[in-house]
């Protein structure tokens, strides 16, 4: 009993409720006429789409920079990579690889600048990150209109310039990862094997990174910056590296998301993208200053599971679309819970 209590306080009641809620949804699904196989395919697909964006939050959490509400910085780098690769006419695997390759220098540069900024505002990272993200998104909205892109699938037809709000990836690299080694059983069961594998590969790389000397130092910086400094580690350098890695993962994350979604969304599209990612990480059991691969994978699965299942199940039960309300309350409630939870001050 004591152990159970400890587990509940440690893991957090909200997470347990969410977990059982999801199980309940799956159990209820067949009774209200929702197909389990479609649901599972949907969940897997959305899991793959979002997991790397969630993964991108981990380095900064671990290095003590808090929840990266400035994820749009990385997303912008990814969008630059994607649009430039299209502009260069790269398609298929070459296109996807090209998009990744082109986005990386942008991600590193922006990440470095962003990291320098966050090092000067220690303690206030989260609010500032949020507004840095918003500023980047709106600033790049101007650039999307002004930059001399000319590929006709990308620019507005009538004006001949300025990128479209959504650009289809149909003839470029849409679904390319999803379809790689994919498994289709019957009409409605589909496993996007390639994307899942790619996600797991990224998670593995990040996992290994945190076992390297740098990764260890980064964790120590997040855990106790004074200890790390006394151990000869430069706190600012580690934080900067974590922000760069986070930004790079954000860029990769959005490219994977978009190849699965089939469209590049520009302008205000990425404005609020950080919030569901943060919520997913927290649902997975992470806190403001500790996160692991398990948190990422479990959290994304749970969160996306709920997002997929509620519209279909709840709506058929209540005959009304409550999923939006539920999504807002659930994701922001989770973030609130994490922010107001007494951080275990181990000092």
């Amino acid at each position, binding site marked *: 009993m004591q152990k159970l209590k400890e587990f509940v306080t440690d893991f957090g009641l909200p997470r347990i409720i969410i977990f059982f809620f999801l199980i309940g949804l799956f159990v209820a699904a067949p009774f209200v006429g929702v197909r389990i196989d479609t649901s599972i395919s949907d969940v897997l697909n959305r899991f793959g789409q979002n997991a790397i964006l969630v993964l991108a939050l981990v380095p900064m959490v671990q290095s003590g920079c808090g929840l990266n509400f400035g994820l749009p910085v990385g997303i912008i780098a990814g969008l630059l990579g994607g649009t430039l690769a299209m502009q260069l006419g790269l398609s298929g695997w070459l296109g996807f690889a090209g998009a990744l390759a082109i986005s990386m220098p942008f991600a590193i540069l922006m990440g470095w600048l962003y990291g320098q900024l966050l090092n000067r505002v220690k303690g206030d990272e989260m609010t500032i990150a949020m507004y840095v993200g918003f500023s980047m998104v709106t600033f790049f909205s101007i650039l999307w209109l002004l930059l001399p892109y000319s590929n006709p699938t990308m620019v507005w037809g009538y004006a001949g310039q300025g990128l479209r709000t959504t650009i289809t990836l149909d003839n470029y690299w849409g679904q390319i990862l999803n379809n790689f080694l994919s498994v289709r059983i019957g009409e409605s069961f589909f496993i996007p094997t390639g994307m899942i594998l790619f996600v797991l590969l990224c998670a593995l790389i990040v996992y*290994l990174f945190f*076992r*390297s*000397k740098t990764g*260890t*130092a980064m*964790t*120590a910086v997040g*855990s*106790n910056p*004074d*200890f790390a*400094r*006394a*151990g*000869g*580690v*430069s706190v600012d350098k580690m934080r900067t590296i974590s922000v760069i890695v986070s930004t790079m993962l954000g860029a990769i994350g959005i490219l994977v998301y978009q190849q699965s979604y089939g469209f590049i969304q520009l302008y205000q599209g990425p404005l609020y993208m950080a919030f569901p990612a943060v919520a997913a990480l927290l649902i997975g059991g992470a806190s403001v200053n*500790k996160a692991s691969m398990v948190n990422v994978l479990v959290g994304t699965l749970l969160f996306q599971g709920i997002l997929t299942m509620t519209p279909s199940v709840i709506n058929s039960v209540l005959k009304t679309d409550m999923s939006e309300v539920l999504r807002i309350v659930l994701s922001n409630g989770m973030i609130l819970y994490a922010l107001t939870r007494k951080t*275990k001050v*181990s*000092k």
Partner: protein
Amino acid sequence: MPNDTPLLSLEGISKDFYGNSVLADVSFSVGKGQIVGLVGENGAGKTTLMRILFGMPVIAETGGFGGSIKLDGQEVFFKSPFDALDAGIGMVHQEFSLIPGFSTTENIALNREAMKANFACDIFGDRMSVLDRVTMRGRAEKAIKRLGVKLDPDMLVSEMPVGHKQFTEIAREINRENVKLLVLDEPTAVLTESEAEILLKSLRHLADQGISIIFISHRLHEVTTLADSIVVLRDGLVVKDTPAKGVSVRDIASWMVGRSVEAKRTDRSGRDIGDEILVFDKLWVDMPGETVKDVNLSVRKGEILGIGGLAGQGKLGIPNGVMGLYPAGGSVRFKGKDVPLNDPRRALELGMAFVSEDRRGVGLLLDEPLDWNIGFTAMQIRGDYLRSYLGGLVKLRDEEALKKLSQEYIELLSIKCTGAKQRAKELSGGNQQKICLAKAFALKPTLLFVSEPTRGIDVGAKELVLQSLRHYNRDFGTTIVMVSSELEELRSICDRVAIVDEGSIAGILLPDADISDFGLLMAGEARKEAADAKA
């Protein structure tokens, strides 16, 4: 104007923290208008005694105290500091508790502002009354005048020099109508000599007006000039309660530190001590609360050098400055090479290691397992405990080697834990301290700084920690510089003991030197005597 019943009498006060006795049967009394000087080393129990007097919640939380406190002959029970304030006891703490953006007046009147009621008070209560700034200013001026200093009532605290802040604090305490007893904890620590003199004068003046004062200071000459009677605490006991008349600084110094010494290091003759290995020249360190101003000192290879002194004098700043943890200047030479200051990594790479006094803040990763704590610095500095993969392309943590390392030290230092993967925060203080030592040992240093190694750990663990330092020095010839507030500890293990006072070395003594010499050095009196002799 002595009275029959003393204003305050403490009777048989005793207090223990989890079986660890800090105060035992402390009794003394303070008469009306009397100034009592309370002196004692760090850890003698002064702070705890004042906390009891003030009804600090921490006392009740740790099981209350024994004995009784009588005010005007009536026994009192304070549940919170506010009760004590209401009863007329004011306290000026070592750290300023002033609002920086408020003026002198606003701070003196803080939460006791004069108010004018208005219609809104009827609906929303007193807090809607408008402040009566004229009255507030008048009261503040009165309080300042009673102190006998010139303070601008409209000056903002953030723009004040330190001395003004101290007087503002005192003015705030005497602004209460009913104040009978004032407790001042090291009020002169931050003041210049002339400011301190002014303060002593105003305290005497307050006492003449009938306010009793408990004056805590380590500047012994201040105590002898100001106090009517002197109470000396040592190890939680009142060792002396005497009228101040005729008491010399040297007397107090020896009462303060004197105790039967069991173990002094006497085997110095047979020790293998080499040439200078570490030389400080004009070292200054800006460590808050432990500022080092001008330290010149040399450490010999293979010795254990002790650095002692009272809290706040800068002894802790020395290792922290050398290891680059606080801004420092001057020159430090190690093995003939200049040590770049403000660069922790270089200091570690040169072969120095540091066990910090701030065990939980700097010494440990509380949320991480023990093997990380022990191996981290060695991994970062020496590249140990990493294993290469893909032909050296990738280097990852070698969990096996880390585990082996921690097992080794867990056995060597007999650390009580469930294993290498237990988190550091779950260990007891003594075992945590051993982890810190293990971390330093794992670096295989040529010179080891150890700061307050026995602070806050129980007696058994203390002995083990000291033992392992002694052995480490003997077995590996590692030079050790040990900083500690516990003089006895330094005398039992060190070859030489340097005493720090006001940010520089007051003198270096052999461990078997006379106890009062240590006391005088610590109280900064030796220097004063020398200066007087010259003059």
